[in-house]
């Protein structure tokens, strides 16, 4: 194809590297969004036979938040293949052993169980904290927005904002708070 057409093709089919902060997010809810970007379903040029999936880098996977009693009750199954090799491990045990496992399993589960799944999972990078290798951070061009609100801690709010906030009532000066 001509030079201009080649540039246009390269621009349209370029693979974008996205970054997603998993802090205080539900892994199963975020997995639905991450899977969309990994498969390329957020693009108008999507087709299952067209290799249009993007790369997603997940950070802070140690800070994910499971719902309700899931940390204590949700169990992950693993079988080594040998007789008597079935294990059911609880979520908190899995998380302590490897903080990236829970979100990896969530994204794996969100995808369709076809032969492309393992290949698409290779495009997902998960890091437990904020440290990302240099060569990966340099590639990242877009950030995926979080789904759940990350509330600000009360002690992280500025003094001035706290003073400006309208009060309904205030304690008298000689009142002693226990």
């Amino acid at each position, binding site marked *: 194809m001509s030079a201009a057409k080649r540039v246009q093709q390269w621009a349209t089919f370029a693979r974008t590297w996205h970054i997603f902060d998993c802090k205080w997010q539900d892994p199963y809810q975020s997995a639905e969004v991450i899977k969309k970007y990994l498969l390329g379903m957020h693009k108008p040029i999507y087709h299952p036979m067209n290799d249009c999936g993007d790369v997603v880098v997940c950070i802070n996977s140690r800070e994910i938040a499971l719902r309700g009693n899931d940390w204590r009750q949700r169990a992950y199954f693993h079988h080594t293949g040998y007789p008597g090799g079935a294990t059911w491990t609880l979520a908190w045990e899995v998380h302590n052993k490897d903080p990236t496992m829970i979100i990896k399993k969530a994204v794996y589960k969100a995808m369709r169980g076809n032969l492309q799944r393992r290949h698409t999972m290779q495009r997902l990078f998960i890091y437990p904290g904020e440290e990302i290798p240099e060569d990966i951070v340099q590639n990242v061009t877009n950030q995926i927005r979080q789904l759940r*609100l990350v*509330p*600000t801690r009360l002690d*992280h*709010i*500025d003094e001035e*904002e706290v003073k400006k906030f309208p009060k309904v009532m205030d304690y008298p000066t000689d009142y002693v708070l226990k």
Partner: protein
Amino acid sequence: MAMIRAGLQRLASVFSSQGGILSRLITQNAPSQNTTVPNTTKDVIATCNKLIEERSSRNFAIVHLLGKQWRVTDGDLLVVEGYWPPNIGDKITLDKVLLAATKDFSLIGRPLVQPGLVTVTATIISKGLSHTRTHFKKKRRKQYMRINFQRAQQTILRINSVEIANRINEAPNNVF
């Protein structure tokens, strides 16, 4: 606190949308501080009217025809299926325009664009029958097998022109 700030910002943007509601129609417009963004709705409409009069670029439109929506520009072919009265050689205007756009701006209808504003003309080129489609039914182990051959009437249209004929808000009222 950051959340409260974010919420206030969003509300402020709703109350005073920068550049008017129609500014999101200008595809060249960058979302944040841009000194060339016009301030009022009238400026946006005036710019669009000037671009309409210049007629510099190719237009395309999304047209609703026979229950389906088609993206249409000058010189392209359309095949519609089913019974449709117009005959070969007839010139037709496609009136249900949902969206019309040029390289620089788009007019989005809710759901249709103003009736006299956009004219899409087409000519019927051919009316024939499609290839034979076989509808085969079988229920296994029940001795039930049916085959149905069907050919649909197909009309081929050539779109002659997609024009934004009048200025915005100045299209004649009684077009139909």
